[in-house]
């Protein structure tokens, strides 16, 4: 038995779809944002939208960490890699992200040594194996990924490894959701909460969304039935006029998160006063830097980093896509000048990016007959 099969059962999906449709009020249009890029990927891959009535629109949020990296930070990474003796390490999706000065792959073609790793712990291993080189880990990701970077820095310090540092681009999800809620050009009814971020931070940090903004949020798993059941839970709340935080992904997400991981994050990182997000602009206290205690591992302090802000290409509308104002195919360059092979914008790079997910799987949706629900 594969445990995932139970979460992809077509009959159960049809049953949930019928129940969701029954909760829709005639003439009302519902906009539900899935915050997490992993959810976007599942929605397109399995055609989840096709199981929903036309009055429910899933809006794709900013939760793809690669997609929110501004071009200037890509250039900073390349500037680090160009320095003597540096091995820059990063996750796979970062390799093709275009900066103002090309991508990491193009930098490698010019002679840089940028290596893809699966874990920051692999970057630390490379540092151990290359004592005559300076190894920098290009850290990206939300609270799901930040604990692995924190743990790696703690191990480096405990083992006295001095040729390892971190170029930290970790961001936090709550300020991004706040920025979206404050955005004047978007009206949302509810949120599908990020499943694995919530494993770390728990469900309580979302309380303000229900309490102050009157919108339901349901922490959702990543299988198609998870998303349909979470949508059903949201629709039940909307029908009853409730706004609460609920946890559909209880098999993985503890209500209070992981207290050990939260303590490690608080120890290793400190909040930046502000950080630029692609498409969302500068958001206060939305990103992490290494704390003073671990400052010797902060690449921004131990290397010269340009730190120049680079404007996005004019044709690129990633900002609007990230905020859910535009759908991927509504961007002027989608699928023509901008494709996964030659991305202009970051949303087309990562498989969690809305544009790449739609480019890879969206064409199948067009072949399906929309369910009469």
């Amino acid at each position, binding site marked *: 038995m*594969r*445990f995932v099969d139970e979460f992809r059962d077509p009959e159960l999906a049809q049953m949930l779809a019928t129940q969701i449709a029954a909760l829709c009020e005639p003439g009302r249009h519902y906009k539900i944002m899935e915050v*997490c*890029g*992993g959810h976007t*990927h599942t929605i397109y891959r399995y055609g989840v939208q096709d199981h929903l009535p036309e009055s429910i629109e899933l809006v794709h949020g900013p*939760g*793809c*960490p*690669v997609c929110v990296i501004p071009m200037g930070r890509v250039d900073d990474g390349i500037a680090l890699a160009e320095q003597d003796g540096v091995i820059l390490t990063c*996750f*796979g*999706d*970062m390799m093709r992200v275009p900066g103002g000065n090309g991508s990491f792959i193009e930098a490698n073609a010019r002679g840089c040594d940028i290596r*893809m*790793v*699966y*874990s*920051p*712990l*692999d970057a630390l291993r490379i540092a151990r194996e290359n004592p005559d080189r300076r190894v920098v880990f290009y850290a*990206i*990701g*939300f609270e*799901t*990924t930040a*604990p*692995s970077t924190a*743990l790696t820095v703690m191990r480096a310090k405990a083992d006295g490894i001095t040729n390892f540092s971190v170029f930290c681009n970790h961001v936090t999800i709550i300020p991004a959701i706040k920025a979206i809620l404050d955005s004047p050009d978007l009206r949302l009814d509810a949120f599908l909460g*990020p*499943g*694995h*971020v919530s*494993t*770390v931070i728990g469900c309580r940090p979302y309380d303000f969304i229900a309490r102050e903004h009157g919108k339901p949020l349901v922490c959702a798993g*990543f299988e198609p039935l998870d998303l349909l059941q979470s949508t059903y839970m949201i629709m039940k709340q909307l029908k009853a006029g409730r706004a609460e935080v609920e946890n559909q992904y209880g*098999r*993985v997400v*503890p209500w209070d998160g*992981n207290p*050990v*991981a939260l303590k*490690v994050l608080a120890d290793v990182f400190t909040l930046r006063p502000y950080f630029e997000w692609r498409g969302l602009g500068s958001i206060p206290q939305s990103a992490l830097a290494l704390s003073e205690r671990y400052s010797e591992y902060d690449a921004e302090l131990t290397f010269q980093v340009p730190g120049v802000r680079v404007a996005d290409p004019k044709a690129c509308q990633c900002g609007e896509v990230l905020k859910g104002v535009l759908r991927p195919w509504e961007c002027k360059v989608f699928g023509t000048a901008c494709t*996964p092979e030659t991305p202009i914008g970051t949303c087309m790079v*990562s*498989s*969690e990016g809305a544009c790449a997910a739609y480019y*890879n799987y969206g064409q199948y949706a067009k072949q399906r007959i929309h369910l009469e629900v």
Partner: protein
Amino acid sequence: MTGDFPACEARDGCITCGDVAVELTVVELIGDDALCIDEGGRTELVAVELVAAVTPGDRVLVHAGVALERLRPIVVEG
């Protein structure tokens, strides 16, 4: 890391970059880490400091080589 665990799969989603984690089963403890296996038989060494003590057979949620949560056992009813 051992075996041929995928670093990044463009179509299936990058398990490290996104908010995506995988469920693995602990095979044996090696020092501070745990050798874990996925349902396809691929193994990787996982840091387990952030979760309660694990023993072989436990299932953990893993992201970027680090266990984020020890999962409750699956109970099959009936």
